[in-house]
């Protein structure tokens, strides 16, 4: 993952590419190891699911742009949280590019755990040149 995204632990959440095709990718999150995002009362910090979609998108764009650009999260839209992840199972993050206008990308993301949909929504990314 380090090849494609600039995030590092503890913020790096995406661990492995499961499948990828043009405009679509599925990545895995080893959720049991991501205790950084768990509160003292054992509840999950739910915005981490937005971060999962953002990083999965960045992996896809990093591969496509040959890692020359950096994806910046600029907006989130209609992102619904249906359920908290269970602490003991891996998570799959599926993203599709929904629209593109130059360096602006609209991405739809869905998050699953054991086939159960946990959250879905849209994020907006802006690709800038890497420093």
């Amino acid at each position: 993952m380090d090849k494609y995204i600039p995030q590092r632990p503890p913020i790096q959440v995406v661990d492995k590419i499961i499948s990828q095709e043009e405009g679509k990718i599925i990545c895995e999150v080893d959720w049991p190891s991501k205790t950084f995002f768990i509160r003292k009362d054992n509840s999950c910090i739910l915005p981490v699911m937005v971060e999962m979609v953002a990083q999965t998108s960045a992996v896809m764009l990093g591969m496509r742009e040959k890692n020359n650009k950096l994806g910046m999260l600029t907006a989130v839209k209609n992102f619904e949280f249906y359920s908290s992840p269970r602490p003991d199972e891996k998570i799959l993050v599926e993203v599709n590019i929904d629209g593109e206008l130059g360096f602006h990308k609209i991405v739809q993301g869905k998050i699953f755990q054991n086939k159960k949909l946990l959250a879905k929504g849209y994020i907006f990314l802006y690709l800038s040149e890497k420093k």
Partner: protein
Amino acid sequence: MNKYSMEQDIFSLLKDDNTIEVPEKLFAFEGHFPNNPIVPGIYTLELAVECLAKKLQKKITLKKINRCKFNQPVLPGMKLKTKITLVTCDDNLQKAKIQFFCKENNVLDANIIVEINNN
């Protein structure tokens, strides 16, 4: 369990008067990004939820982000003022608009729906 959690970082950022002060050092900066510290979007979103919980003085669960714009990066040393506007509340679902400002600049503009937990 990690020795350190994001929750601790969030509590260190959020002050009693619901303002936000970003220190020069934050655990998150180790990974976001090495040698280029920027407060992650996930932190800004969680701060918005925590500010709302503080205003309501209730425990809440994030249900939906209707719309959220990150207008500029949140950087070390920034001091942010927060503005929370309660919109409607139906069946324990509270809609709210949350804005963060650095000086006069709008840094975050978010419309969210949270569930008020009665337990």
